[in-house]
């Protein structure tokens, strides 16, 4: 490897001290989501995921983001600072919908990918139970995240 490539790689490794997990999910609410209940769900989801990650040793949120796509619009949610809380941006129209897709992306500092995955899954389960929803994970990106070479400390 060239000297400059080594420097470049070193820089990336030094910089990338973050644990990551991402999942694409299908959720179903037999009672039907309203814009209000969808916001409550997304707020609860991000808060629970953050709590579980902090419980497992994370000391800083990079970001926790989720994007909900439904037949009546979209809902973006983001949590960076627990003191500030979950920020929501909605284009959901009035009315109910039963099914939606949610893409969740978690990046935290202080714990590695496997712990982030376990903590995040616990957070998801908690919220699904709380709101009595059905959930199917369509795609779990843990293996992909893990396989990205320059995430690995050597």
């Amino acid at each position, binding site marked *: 490897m060239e000297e*400059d490539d080594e*420097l470049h790689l070193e820089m990336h490794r030094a910089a990338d001290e973050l644990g990551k997990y*991402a999942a694409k999910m299908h959720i179903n609410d037999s009672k039907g989501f309203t814009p209000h209940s969808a916001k409550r769900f997304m707020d609860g989801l991000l808060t629970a995921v953050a709590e579980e990650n902090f419980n497992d040793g994370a000391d*800083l*949120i990079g970001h926790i*983001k*989720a994007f909900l796509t439904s037949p009546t619009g979209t809902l973006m949610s983001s949590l960076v600072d627990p003191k500030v809380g979950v920020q929501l941006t909605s284009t959901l129209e009035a009315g109910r919908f039963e099914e939606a897709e949610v893409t969740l992306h978690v*990046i935290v500092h202080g714990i590695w990918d496997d712990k982030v995955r376990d903590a995040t899954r616990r957070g998801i389960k908690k919220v699904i139970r709380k709101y009595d929803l059905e959930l199917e994970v369509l795609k779990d990106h843990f293996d992909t995240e893990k396989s*990205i070479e*320059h995430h690995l400390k050597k």
Partner: protein
Amino acid sequence: MKLAQIAGFLGSGKTTLLIDVARELVQRGHRIAIIVNDVGEINVDAKFIESYGLKAREISGGCICCQIAGSFANTIAVLHNTFKPDIIIVEPSGVAIPWGLKRAAEYSEEETDVIIEHAPVITLVDSTRIDLLMDAVRRLVETQIREADVVLINKVDAATDEQIEKSRTMIKKINPTAEILLVSGRNQVGLKEVADIIETRVSPRYDEAVEKELLRKQYGSQ
């Protein structure tokens, strides 16, 4: 075609600012495309940006300054040939190196008939979390500041005077030549100034000697 990078640590407000700046530039008559990059396979920002009616492309699964520089160059070339933007705003991953990204962007000149011009490299710093960030991810934050032409101290509406001053002192120490602006993405403070910077000013093209020097300053000769 001009390329503008908006860098910064996760949660620093890049996406919010990028959307507002892009809309401002569209209002001024520019044709704007946006490229968002994440090292993971998923990036939720592109979907969010498109929900504002903006043209966004997502490049995931690696860092566009090195690992997937070819995909980045190809995306620029395709955007140039199909959408014909006059400005592309790039939100790089949190680990991208601005000078490496310049080089990767210029690769697109080999793929199509385009000349890349760079807007000043902009880095955002979250003033409300400055202590946390300097404790946890100091090296990364320092790198992003060191390679910036303009550093935006963001979230000044929510930060204390002490946090803002601490951010300013830190930035000056790391990069004495960087221009510093106070902004608030939430209240759109500084938005027009950032749009002006992207619209009217330029930053040097990739220079291998400069990149080597920047990398060595931080990681070489240790």
